[in-house]
């Protein structure tokens, strides 16, 4: 009996916190159909906010261009950091103890450091060497690779540690060249780690605001998050943004839920 009360209390508490966490999201989605930003259905149920995404002139164009840059940046940064991360993890694994430790510590720096400090340091660095690093995508891709690759390395390393070292040696004994052994034996074994590292890098890059904001320069490049910041920070939130945010919420939350449900099912099947 006592346990049952405890459980009811626990579930009530969990439900309350969950409700609070999702309330803002829920309200935005509901009132994205009101066509206004006053949180009332005075004008009735409409899709006007969603139509406004495509019919707001300059705003629509800016949003589209921000979406384009966000995707270009996320794809290039995550591909580069996955390739870089994969090979360097294999390399790091075979480094001497001391050098390995130092490399892994430095690798952790972008993860533990405050984002503002990392963003500022890259900004000052690029400014100092501006003749090598032109403003714009070059700087953005480098800085995104810099904060994504550590996560790729750390998602592949545990997998590599699980690998039987004899697998590589066996490939060599069977006459494979070292490079072929890496591509045909080691990398296929690492694939689950590589995939989750890639997904991580892609999400992090997509989600980034601070580092992009400091390093975008004044070439007019905006990503979704910097454009949202420029446009919605000063004014109050227009109905247009209600619709955009709702799409975001629904896409991201369902995508992550589906991925995780699938992952759980796979684990359960094992």
């Amino acid at each position, binding site marked *: 009996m006592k346990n049952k009360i405890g459980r009811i209390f*626990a579930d009530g508490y969990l439900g309350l916190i969950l409700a609070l966490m999702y309330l803002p999201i829920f309200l935005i989605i509901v009132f994205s159909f009101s066509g206004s930003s006053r949180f009332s259905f005075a004008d009735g149920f409409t899709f006007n906010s969603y139509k406004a995404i495509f019919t707001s002139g300059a705003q629509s164009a800016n949003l589209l261009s921000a979406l384009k840059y966000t995707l270009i940046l996320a794809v290039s940064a995550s591909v580069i950091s996955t390739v870089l991360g994969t090979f360097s993890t294999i390399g790091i694994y075979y480094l001497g103890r001391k050098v390995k430790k130092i490399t892994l510590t430095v690798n952790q720096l972008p993860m533990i450091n405050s984002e503002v400090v990392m963003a500022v340091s890259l900004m000052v660095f690029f400014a100092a060497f501006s003749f090598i690093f032109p403003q714009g995508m070059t700087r953005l891709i480098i800085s995104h690779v810099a904060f994504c690759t550590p996560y790729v390395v750390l998602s592949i390393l545990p997998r590599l540690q699980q690998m039987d070292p004899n697998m590589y040696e066996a490939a060599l004994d069977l006459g494979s060249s070292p490079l072929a052994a890496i591509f045909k034996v080691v990398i296929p074994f690492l694939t689950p780690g590589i995939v989750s590292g890639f997904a991580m890098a892609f999400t992090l890059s997509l989600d980034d605001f601070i580092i992009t904001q400091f390093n975008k320069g004044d070439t007019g490049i905006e990503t979704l998050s910097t454009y949202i910041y420029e446009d919605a920070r000063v004014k109050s939130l227009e109905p247009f943004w209600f619709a955009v945010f709702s799409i975001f919420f629904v896409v991201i939350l369902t995508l992550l839920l589906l991925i995780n449900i699938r992952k759980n099912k796979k684990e359960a099947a094992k």
Partner: protein
Amino acid sequence: MRKVKFRFSRKAFAYPYMIFLLLFVVVPLVIVLINAFLGDDGKLTFDNFIEFFSDASGGLTVLGNSLIIGLVTTLICLVIGYPVAYFLAKYHASSKIFVLLFILPMWVNFLIRTLSTKAIFMALDIKLGMGTIMFGMVYNYLPYMILPLHTTLVSIDHSYIEAAEDLGADRFTVLWKTVLPLSLSGIVSGVTMTFIPAISTFAISEILSSSKIFLFGDSINMYFSKATNSLGVGSVMSFVMLIIVIIANVLMSLTEKKEEVKSAL
């Protein structure tokens, strides 16, 4: 002979990334640190530190405010988040999706979440200020507190708890003397994951106070922006921030078993 050659070639895969890290992680930080000791004329000086610590431009006050807000945010997150993580581990350990629901919001861009809460506050006619900032911060960082706590709490060997019960401890004593100490590493990493971004956050306080209240991250941003362009003081502030980060992480590595918290998702 053959083997030695291969060892070398595999190690070499790490070299490009080591150069990359040196170039784009270490060197930029060193430049910021050097900037902290350079005056406007480019000479070695402690003026920036004097300017910051004498509070001439209000930097120290901002640091103080940020530390207080960061501390309160972290505390509230811990007080709200610990029961969440504990109940989840106790009653819903097998339901990963339920746990996931608590973590998911952190993958929605924080600007979107913050602007949404602002819109709601404004619709409700709630005055933007310290209260709304605190709400926004807790709302934002709660998942970062719950995740590491939950990871540690589910990994606690249940036999410890049973042993404590068998030895006559009541529920409260079990919680206080067994579960809590065993979850210390989770508490420390949850506190770090909340505290560091909370004190250095940029934009949350600006949005939720209509630019009235500035925190450390906002002022670092301000010092480095074109309008002010006072790199020296900004660099001192980055330096201070870096020291706080290092202290937090030393504390963490002392208690933690090095779990990869963020990649747990």
